[in-house]
């Protein structure tokens, strides 16, 4: 297996160990020389920096796009044109029509397009989805999701909504996808954003916070909040899933499995690294993607359609936040399930 890894930022660094674990040879390509740096860090592993994109695409099994969102479409279309399977970081694109275009090209070329909605592979979320699917909670009624942390400073493009789509499109799209995964398609969105959407990078910390309410075709309602917060805002995700017959709650910060309660000095984001208690969700995700290339390898839990719909809902939320109005959505997917469990979502005529 030969993987073309495009990008060498945070997500590429999360994916790379997963690919190596799966036995892949990885060629890294970037436009800013960071591929060489990443490959050098992995000296002794099967990681090389590629000199050109064309060269890399010509000699790989699949392409892993881990670049800023505005570049996804061009790179994905190039990968598809080369006949390669594609896994693409979320959001697939900044608008649903671009996402549709990528998916249509992949379908026409007969290659896989896997939007990397990795939260579906986080064990707590996967366990919750299984419980919902088994009917443990009865009919879902009202869902809440929160996601927040310090404002991303490691790459300047996050600060610019024209590139990242802002906190709704870049961060809340995770929980938008999870809400749709468990409660089905969304027909109405209302959202509001407060604070500094476009960070200037000044000395004063700039916080942006957003709230969105989704109404699913099933009647389920979901509340999603996103926060790019102060520099000391601990990264944390929570969910609360309430149905007619039960309730599930999760707080990522309350169940670490392992904590360091003292290490002699107070270190900000440094010191002894936390030990992962479960397999990396990125590895789980890549394994499922890789298996899907094989005949009978199984359908990944994320489809291209899922990636498109997450973008469509996020786009509607951004529009609602701008206009103050609720936005109605029309999707082409049947929501045939009373419980909102999309165990067997079927495409209908579009």
């Amino acid at each position, binding site marked *: 297996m030969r993987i073309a890894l495009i990008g060498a930022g945070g997500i590429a660094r999360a994916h790379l160990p997963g690919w190596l674990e799966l036995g892949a040879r990885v060629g890294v390509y970037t436009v800013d020389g960071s591929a060489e740096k990443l490959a050098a860090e992995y000296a002794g592993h099967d990681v090389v920096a590629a000199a050109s994109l064309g060269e890399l695409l010509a000699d790989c099994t699949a392409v892993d796009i881990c670049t800023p969102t505005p570049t996804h479409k061009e790179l994905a279309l190039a990968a598809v044109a080369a006949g390669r399977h594609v896994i693409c970081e979320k959001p697939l694109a900044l608008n649903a029509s671009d996402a549709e275009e990528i998916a249509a090209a992949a379908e026409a070329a007969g290659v896989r397009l896997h939007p990397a909605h990795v939260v579906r592979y986080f064990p707590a979320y996967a366990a919750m989805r299984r419980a919902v699917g088994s009917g443990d909670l009865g*009919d*879902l*009624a*009202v869902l*809440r999701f*929160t996601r*927040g942390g310090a404002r991303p400073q490691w790459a300047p493009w996050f600060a610019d909504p024209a590139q990242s789509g802002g906190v709704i499109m870049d961060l809340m799209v995770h929980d938008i996808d999870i809400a749709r995964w468990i409660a089905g398609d969304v027909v*109405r969105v*209302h959202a*509001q954003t*407060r*604070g500094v959407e476009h960070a200037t990078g000044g000395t004063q*910390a700039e*916080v*942006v*916070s*957003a*709230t969105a*309410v989704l*109404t699913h075709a099933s*009647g*389920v*309602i*979901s*509340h999603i*909040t996103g*926060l790019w*917060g*102060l520099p000391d*805002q601990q990264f944390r995700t929570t969910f*609360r899933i*309430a*149905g*007619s017959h*039960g*309730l599930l709650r999760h707080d990522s910060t309350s169940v670490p499995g392992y904590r360091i309660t003292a290490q002699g000095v107070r270190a900000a984001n440094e010191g002894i690294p936390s030990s992962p208690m479960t397999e990396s969700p990125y590895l789980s995700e890549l394994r499922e993607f890789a298996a899907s290339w094989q005949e009978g390898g199984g359908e990944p839990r994320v489809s291209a359609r899922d990636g498109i719909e997450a973008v469509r809902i996020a786009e509607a939320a951004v529009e609602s936040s701008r206009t*103050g*109005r*609720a936005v*109605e959505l029309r999707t082409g997917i049947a929501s045939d399930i009373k419980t909102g469990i999309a165990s067997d979502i079927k495409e209908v005529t579009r």
Partner: protein
Amino acid sequence: MKVAVLSFAHVHAAGYLRLLSRMPGVEVIGSDPDTASAAPGEVRGRAFAEERGVAYAATYEEAFAWGPDAVIVCSENARHRPLVELAASRGVDVLCEKPLATTVEDGEAMLAACREAGVRLAVAFPVRFSPAYAAVKAAVSSGDAGRVLTVSGANNGSMPSVRRWFADPELAGGGALMDHTVHIADLLDDLFGEARAVDVYAQTNNRMYAGEVDAETSGLVTVTYDNGSVATIDCSWSHPRSHHSWGGLELTVVGERATLEMDAFDQAVHGFSERRGQGLELPFGADLDELMLRAFLYGPAEGGMDVADGEGGLRTLKIVTAGYESARRGVPVAVG
């Protein structure tokens, strides 16, 4: 100090009778003549008072003839108005259960009656007496938290089952949206000072307790304020009915300079009772109802919280009524 509790329809009547009975210097009677709405099996009227060892007046007339200094109205939401007007006509201060009323028209009439009679109208919002809320308020009013950007709140319980009128829209004015939006709306009414709600977007469903009640049992309510803040409130009756705890009230306030979280009821020792075969929760936090009653009867403590007034009660009611219209139409609705 003589205090009469008028009607035992509301689930809080029992708590008020208990707290008032043990307050030194307070004499209490209850009166609950109008029990036609009670569901079979619900204990009301004289039997309810006797179970609690509280003196009973067979009619509201008799209760007022006793000469109370203050009354607490615990009738069904839609029946607050006649009792508040009766108290006003007798010149007696009144603490009215929340929500103030089920219609803005009723609420305005109650305010007018009390204003003209020169009696005090207070609304029973105990959570504003929470020490956790006091800490949030201090962080915001001192400026330490900076401008408030967003608020996310949840007030969840199970559907009240000991008093079934709570899910009867005729008597309750609705379901969970009417029952549970106002507590957090009241906190924000206090927190934001002069700021006012501009519009409300609400979505509801009745997938919880479906087939059992007609009222909405889940709701999400987004309120936009003229200070630029926006709040989303989960008012759902989404706490499991057989859970050993009743539910709770949580608030996250995102400011420009601090992120704050409060839980008004998380101060409890948790465990498990093998004898009962369920989880055990031993609350040790402040008794918010008691703090509220003391403030109503004796005035706020030095620098402390006062009870919500009728004007505030009307403002939170207007958020709820706008929420119902929004849920019906699927669009944000201006707060009247």
